[in-house]
């Protein structure tokens, strides 16, 4: 896999840093986040690997993984991290970026009526829309 300066300095990495408030460079890959994660067994790439791929600018590896959707945002990783990196925040930032991508949203405006009728709480709909706003 080629590693280049452009890839390391991609704007999406900066977005992730801004949205999550976390600096992935701080991580030294001890793996404690993965060791602490209660759902890591179901993930295709492990939490510390998510951070590693981001350090190297390998975004596809992260965005195509099921890991970011399996993350339950329990924040155990954040509580255990010796480098004070909040991996849960990073996971959320990745989800937000995917959700905000035009054309790939799972919730479309015209479907809102339908999901209401299926019993989705209003709070859920509002939250979903919040993620559209850029």
């Amino acid at each position, binding site marked *: 896999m080629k*590693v*280049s*300066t452009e890839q*390391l300095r991609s704007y999406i990495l900066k977005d992730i840093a801004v949205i999550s408030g976390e600096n992935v460079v701080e991580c030294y*890959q001890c793996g404690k986040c993965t060791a602490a994660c209660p759902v890591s067994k179901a993930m295709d790439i492990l939490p510390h*690997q998510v951070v*590693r791929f981001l350090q*190297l600018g390998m975004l596809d590896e992260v965005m195509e993984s099921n890991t970011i959707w399996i993350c339950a945002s329990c924040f155990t990783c954040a509580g255990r991290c010796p480098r004070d990196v909040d991996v849960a925040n990073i996971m959320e930032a990745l989800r937000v970026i995917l959700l905000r991508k035009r054309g790939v949203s799972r919730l479309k405006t015209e479907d809102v009526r339908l999901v209401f009728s299926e019993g989705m709480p209003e709070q859920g709909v509002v939250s979903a829309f919040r993620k559209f706003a850029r």
Partner: protein
Amino acid sequence: MRRIGVFVCWCGTNIAGTVDIEAVVEAAKKMPGVVYTGEYKYMCSEIGQSMIRDTIKKEQLDRLVIASCSPRMHEATFRRTAAAAGLNPYLVEIANIREHCSWVHKEKEKATTKAIALIRAAVAKAAYNRELVAGEIPVEQRALVIGAGIAGIQAALDIADAGFEVDLVERTPSIGGRMAQLDKTFPTLDCSACILTPKMVDVASHPHINLYTYSEVEKVEGYVGNFDVTIRKKARSIDMSRCTGCGVCLEKCPIKVDSEFNEGLIKRKAIYIPFPQAVPNVPVIDRTSCRWFKKGKCAVCKKVCPADAVDYEQADELLEKKYGGIVLTTGFDTLKLDEFGEFGYGKHPDIITSLEFERLINASGPTGGKLVRLSNQEIPQNIVFIHCVGSRDKARGKPYCSKICCMYTAKHAILLKEKYPHSQTYIFYIDVRTGGKEFEEFHRRAVEEYGAVYFRGIVGKVFPEGDKLLVQGVDSLSSRTIEIEADMVVLAAAMQARDDAAEVARMLGIGVDTHHFFVEAHPKLRPVETHSAGIYLAGACQGPKDIPETVAQAGAAAAKAIVLLSKKTLIADPCVSEVNEEICTGCLACIQVCPYKAITEKTLDQKVHGRVVQRLLAQVNEALCQGCGSCTAACRPGAINLKSFSNDQILAEVDAVCL
């Protein structure tokens, strides 16, 4: 009949837990020559010792056997106890029933039997113990420091500041060593030259330091307090008293050869000063490349010298001097990379070693501190550093860690980013080792503030592609192969011992390890001493280390040398070899095996049937002998005995155990 006293120590439960003390005492009472047997919980305590002292007087004991811990632990203690009670200290014998018995056995019955056997052996030996008197040897109050890098400079300054005369011998034309080649130092980024050159000047101007540059130690004889050393002052071909260091000769010399100081990155002249801050600031003619010495023509330097200092007739000078102690600070080399073809060193000008990088980024270096690709003189954008080139590599390199590479590579990453903010540094590592004050913080700063990208894994191949270098590596953290188009590749070559380290060690009678680093007397408790008394070590000649450690070790070695020099005389250990001249056949096999060069031959005039016959004999220099006993094993007629470990004594022990 001897009057032997046996004292059995419990050592708390250390001995008493495994050995039946009462049974041991009962058995000892019946041993031949034993007139008194005692026991106590801690024989080494003041109460235990006073019990021994009182008993010696009361029972008029003439030999002591202390059954306790290893003699390494408390032999000296109990010898002092005996001396305090008026008994010759060498009449004390230790039976080691702790390390050799209670600590290594579990079954009490068997351990008790063994303890009794050990004591029986000690009693049998003690009966043969003789009174020995430690002699005195004078100490020459001058030190020799070999190698004038930062270690030698520091050691020489410390010894000289204590008021002793120091001769500092350096092989190259200038003092300064490796540290003079460096740009900045981790983790403070102090300019290396700025902190080193004042010390170099201090050495040159110190009233107690004699500097011998372009000189080599050729022969070392003698022993602690009295080393006889021959120093070869190589012909500099310059009259040092006349030369003003103006440098005209350097400009006019027509011959150019690779500059050793600049790692061959630029040329120097055949007449040269290694670097501008050199001490002494006097050129030297490299006779192997000088046209005058090769062809008998030229003599340009002689013509242009305004001080008439050039002297082609100068010859090597041999100095013979006496020293009390020697500090060895000969430094290190870097591993030759011929074995590592995958990194392409030597095949492409942009693949360089860390030491070459150090010269390139150095303001006083060949490019004036401008880091350029040697292929096209452009500033590199993407720079790949590779750790552990030859280090931690038992197959083709060295199995040890070179210790400083992690830190200096982090330093290089920081220096690069500061100088060229648009550059990108990639570092391949196996582990990042940052044991040291402020080291981890420094490394993290390189990552977090200076954007160095670390890959956990090593490069498998570097090869040119167009005007770039394609680097193929792996990041084992993400299990992804990594490819980088680099402008420059920097290899952290392993530190290794000097090529001639083993020869130097042989000359001095000290040891080297399997990698030819000099061996310290004890890795923890005697880290700057060698097995040869009076010879001390400092710096990377003893093993890879950084500047702060080197300076600390140099100070420690100096302190040891000062302790030695501050004594007018030394007490010699009397447990040395002695030759029975009546039995010695003069075969001199002992000379061959003596590792301390303590045995020499002598001739003895002897009257045989009215005629004078000369007999060849071995004689032992008691000051040089370290009491190893090799000669006693080599001596076929059994003429050499080690005092306190004579053949009689050893056989008595064996008999006592076996019979």
